[in-house]
């Protein structure tokens, strides 16, 4: 009888408990705090409670039951943020249509991808799981927190992050559609046409639905109102025009960057971050005037024709022109040492420590629309922390601990050989594995990569 009573109660409880990300509490004692927004504070404590930074100061007493991490002699900085990554995804490109605004990488999250752990080992707590660059208008993308250990894909999502979408210019879309399928876009002109056609359709779509909604409100017209065809693709484009989605655009050449600014102006889109943007140094004032932001590599180029005209001074030039700039990885390897990538801007461009570190903290946070939650050490922000031995911009920097929402997700002292969450019992591991390394951005677009992605 008791059993019968307990069972439905238990059931109710489980149903009402919505999956909340795990949070933790801790006191990080006596570290050198690199706050990013409020200078460097030596021998200072930082208290995290329930996943949030609640106090920063000297001599904070340990609240009961809270773990203390002794950071004496260590550097404590906000968790590193990568504005352009493809880790933690089962699929990157829906490379079958030049416009796929309806697709969403949040549907393809793979919390079992060991790259997430490797990113944590490089102090990275947040990455932007971007759609690839095969399509002119690619998919909506999810900002993920590196909560390594969770199995439910939704548990990776940073729920408060705004929606974003991937656009792409230049050789990738023309290669996939023009050369690959013999269709538009075959040239850079074609890429512009794809954007303009798509937005023009979306304008008409918005108008049709507005007219229908007006008819439904009118007593007389309601009876004969016919709903227009629904399209998730066009609806998403409408949401972009309505300012609900941040555009992240894969780009290299200056002329194309100006082209897209023109398209966005015509359709009233105000928020854009250019990705890669290797020729950004040529149009830095124009970017600043538009309010466009830039997410670049430190010194990676010449991997295809449109990426030859590049410089390692790109980030510094953009910063000096007041463009909000970040340094990204676009790679499961680079993501492990973004702090080192940021340091390169001191060699090429003499950026200050604070400026260099802002490239991988507060600036990418701004680009993802999450700077009020993360990107610096401030009371009220998320407890996302990277603890380093030696200064993070030093070549001797070693990440010691990485903390997400107050939970230690990486600890160099507890770093097992095999961290995989799921293991294939049939996998043959005593044989050499052929690895095909290609630009991740194009995964799903090229044949070899396609086969790999399909597994």
């Amino acid at each position: 009888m008791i059993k019968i009573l307990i069972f439905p109660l238990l059931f109710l409880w489980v149903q009402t408990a919505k999956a909340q990300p795990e949070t933790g509490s801790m006191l990080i004692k006596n570290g050198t705090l690199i706050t990013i927004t409020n200078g460097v504070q030596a021998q200072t404590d930082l208290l995290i409670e329930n996943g949030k930074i609640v106090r920063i100061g000297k001599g904070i007493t340990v609240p009961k039951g809270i773990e203390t991490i002794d950071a004496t002699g260590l550097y404590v900085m906000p968790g590193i943020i990568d504005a352009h990554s493809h880790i933690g995804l089962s699929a990157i490109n829906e490379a079958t249509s030049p416009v796929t605004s309806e697709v969403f990488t949040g549907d393809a999250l793979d919390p079992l991808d060991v790259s997430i752990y490797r990113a944590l080992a490089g102090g990275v707590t947040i990455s932007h799981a971007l759609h690839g660059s095969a399509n002119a208008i690619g998919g909506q993308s999810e900002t993920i927190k590196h909560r390594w250990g969770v199995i439910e894909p939704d548990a990776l999502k940073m729920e408060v992050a705004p929606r974003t979408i991937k656009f792409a210019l230049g050789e990738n879309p023309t290669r996939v559609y023009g050369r690959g399928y013999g269709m538009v876009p075959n040239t850079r002109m074609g890429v512009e046409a794809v954007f303009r056609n798509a937005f023009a359709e979306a304008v008409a779509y918005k108008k049709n639905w507005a007219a229908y909604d007006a008819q439904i409100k009118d007593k007389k017209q309601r009876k004969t109102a016919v709903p227009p065809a629904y399209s998730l693709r066009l609806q998403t484009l409408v949401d972009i025009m309505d300012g609900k989605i941040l555009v992240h655009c894969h780009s290299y050449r200056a002329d194309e960057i100006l082209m897209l600014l023109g398209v966005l102006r015509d359709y009233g889109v105000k928020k854009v971050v250019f990705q890669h943007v290797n020729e950004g140094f040529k149009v830095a004032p124009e970017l600043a005037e538009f309010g466009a932001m830039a997410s670049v590599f430190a010194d990676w180029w010449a991997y295809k024709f449109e990426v030859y005209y590049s410089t390692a001074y790109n980030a510094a030039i953009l910063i000096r022109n007041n463009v909000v700039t970040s340094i990204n990885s676009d790679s499961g390897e680079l993501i492990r040492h973004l702090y080192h990538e940021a340091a390169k801007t001191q060699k090429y461009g003499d950026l200050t420590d604070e400026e260099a570190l802002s490239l991988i903290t507060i600036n990418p946070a701004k680009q993802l629309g999450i700077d009020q939650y993360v990107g610096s050490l401030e009371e009220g922000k998320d407890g996302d922390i990277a603890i380093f031995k030696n200064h993070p911009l030093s070549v001797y920097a070693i990440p010691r601990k990485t903390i997400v929402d107050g939970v230690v997700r990486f600890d160099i002292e507890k770093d097992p050989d095999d961290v995989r969450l799921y293991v294939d019992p049939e996998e043959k591991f005593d044989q050499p594995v052929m690895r095909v390394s290609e630009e991740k951005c194009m995964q799903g677009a090229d044949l070899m990569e396609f086969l790999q992605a399909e597994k």
Partner: protein
Amino acid sequence: MRNLSLIRFVFVLILLSATEFSIAQTDQTKLQPVTRAFALTNATVVQAPDRTVTNTTVVVRNGLIVSVGKNIDIPLDAQIVRADSLYVYAGFIDGLSQAGVEKPGGNQRGTDTSRFSARSKYNPADPPNAVAGIQPDAEVRQFLNPDLKSVEELRKIGFTASHVVPYGKMLTGSGALVLMGGDSPDAMMLRDDMSLFSQFQGADRLYPATVLGMMAKWRDLYRQAEISKAYETKFSENPSGLERPVYDRVIAAFYPVIDGNKIVYFKTPSVLDAYRAFTLQSDLSFPLVLAGLKQGWDLIDKLKSTNTRVFLSLDLPEDAKTKKNEAAEADSTKTTKNEKEEAPTFMTETEKKALEARQDAFRKKYETQPQMLQEAGIAFGFSTLEADTKDIRKNLQRMVKSGLSEAAALTALTTAPAAIMGVSDMLGTVDAGKIANMVVTTKPYFEEDSSIKYVFVDGKMYEYEVTEKKTDKKETDTSGK
């Protein structure tokens, strides 16, 4: 007068030849259908997972179980099956398979092997629905064939009914519960149009190719369907002065799902597949059954909180023994000892051991998955899809050996799937009034040396040869695979 008798003569001739024809076509058991009455006498009858009776007789007539009991009257016309040392179970029910389903011809996966042919033929952004795998309007009854080998294979191991779905990609059409046998495709049918089947199977380099495109396509179709269904309802109430709604068979296939009258069966082998199906369900709120699940151990809370019904896969990873045998065999094929030594080593013995230990731990998870669900109080059945029929009995035995109780295993094979599919009044137990689907074995089904002697489907008896020393043979079979 003479004419009339001639006509009668010809008519009788036709009738005779027709009966002969039908016997030759359908009777694969070499048994003449002299009678549709059978009596299994003196058997141990496992009427339900928790009800076993001994020295009991089961009488079957015209496809139904008519009586079960001791000292009951045996009809004069019944074929008597002496079952003194035999065990009688309810016929097993398969939650999802494609047994007895023809693969459609034409430009489908499997028939068209050229990767690039699709590329030149279709606009990748807008391929025809049949090529893209968007066929929720297809119906499995169009593809049924009781004479396919897959039917016999499944029947041979005790499955008498299966929920079958059409072949295809993302949305393959509506499924039906069918018998694993019958004189004609229609004769297999138990419950038509029972489900809408979907899986994360993309179109080859055509939209939707990846899980990204498939999730979006699902939402797009479903929301289109919701809008057009609402308009159609409005139109049917008073069509005067209203534009005619445009009929779209793909969209219309979702209407019964939106009404909650048709359940979406999602094939979700992996834990991520399952979570993605849950995402669609919570976005669109349709009735959902997960099928072919292999990695359910981390889903227990989710299954419970959403009260989701599930069919677990009968496929298991190879057991460690088989795997080692294979490795040994591969070693022995190397011609000289030298070659063996020259093979580069990629890891130390310790590393290898550690990796193997992790594989063993995960193999255990696959084997104990049904037990874990059962202990959590989640009702589940089994699906034979993706399982090699030759391995199914062995896999069931592995699950039982890993701790699943025989009663729980039997529940998952009989009463649970019947309940999930809403056919408990027809199938699932050996009781008077139920359809005569039964499995008769020489020993309890889950014992390793137990063999199936008879299978009854719809009151028709199929007899199987029982080979002695079966266990020895099996051993050599698996190692030589």
